[in-house]
């Protein structure tokens, strides 16, 4: 193998990762922002390490945010291991416990958990922010 070929081969992963990063940043910044209420994916374990697992509460979602007022449920999240759709939002681990407690008592304290998505038709929607009663989750904890 020539040194040029080896150089190209070794550069490919960096190139692809860079391109992927650019595409993801474009995607997250180019869509319209939609706000969707969430509920626990698994009520026993909402928080799992660095990310929270949740489901979108489509029954209480405002579908007017989308084209023709129809919620594109299939486009959001991925199939979970135990059935149903599962979504993720990453948080620093040190705040996991506090957030978990808030989530458990959300009904008692009238807390509304929402995730702001960047949505663009034909692209995978991307979670941008986690809101508690309309404010950034950091403020709530």
């Amino acid at each position, binding site marked *: 193998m020539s040194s040029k070929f080896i150089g190209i081969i070794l550069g490919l992963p*960096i190139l692809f*990762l860079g391109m992927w990063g650019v595409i993801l940043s474009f995607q997250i910044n180019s869509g319209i922002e939609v706000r969707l209420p969430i509920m626990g994916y698994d009520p026993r374990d909402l928080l799992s390490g660095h990310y929270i697992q949740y489901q979108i509460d489509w029954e209480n979602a405002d579908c007017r945010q989308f084209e023709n007022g129809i919620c594109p449920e299939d486009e959001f999240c991925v199939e979970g291991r135990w059935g149903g759709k599962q979504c993720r939002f990453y948080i620093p681990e040190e705040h996991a416990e506090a957030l978990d407690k808030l989530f458990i008592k959300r009904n008692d304290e009238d807390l509304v958990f929402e995730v702001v998505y960047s949505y663009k038709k034909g692209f995978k929607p991307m979670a941008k922010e986690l809101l508690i009663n309309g404010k950034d989750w950091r403020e709530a904890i």
Partner: protein
Amino acid sequence: MKLKKKIDKWVENELISEAQGNSILKFEQKYNNGIFGKTAFIIAGLLIGLGICLIVASNWDEIPTILKVLGCFGMLGAFSYNAYKNILAKNEKLTELFLILAFLMVGATIGLFGQIFNLDGGFNSFCTGWALLGTPYVLLSKSVRFNIVWGVLLLKVWDIFTYTKSLSSTFFMAVFFIMISIGCYILIKKTNISLKLPKALSKLFMFIAYALICKIGFKYGLDRFFYNSNISFEVIMANIIVFGFLGGYMWFAIKKQDISLFKRNTFLLEIWIFILFASVYENLFMSGIGFILSGLAILGMIKILKKTSKFIQNMEAFK
């Protein structure tokens, strides 16, 4: 030292001269003494990589996102560049070290993107993405183990056991992996390919085939084989598959005069015969008879094999 002892013995029995013995020893020391060094380098690579990951992880939340991304790409670039330099300098150990580090860094970068952009993908898609993007490092590596790890990551996407819910599907999946394994084996034999990937894939796919055959045997082939008068077609088929697979492999080993392969499969076949008998009888007396019968079956098998192949007659295992 094992080789030294062997050489001394050969010299003592005048099979080779002392000068030849010394030459052999020097040759072996020069070219075949790298196992410890290679393993040490691989372990060192893993430890350094994990160490860096842990240090970064301990301050993870305080580091700005852009710095994390730049750090990841910087390290990936540095490892790749060092791998490149060492490939050109023909320094195998350092090449392996930097290829492994670069490979780990690709996984770390994917994980980082997952965090930054809140990607929903699960463990399987992470493994597949990592394997695909890490392919160049694996192609350049001379370590079969590294290649196998890569293959395992890639195969996560198939989630093999979800497709093997019946005897027939498990059987066809096993056949599929055997075929690919043979394909890789032929590729190695027929071409002067210097890549380790086909060898690693051949081993990996055959290992999966073994696992699937084990599943066939234990799940479908042990339903009171000798005890049940209404023995099902499935049980018979499962045993035909297990015996066919191991027997076929033994035949292949005889043809290729591969003693270790032959021993391994004979041992597995003996174990299987023992399990078949042991799983059937329920009281001590009957179990005793079962064990004696399984021992006799194994002895009979060895006797038949000894008679049928000249190679086996001369084999070390039967002396």
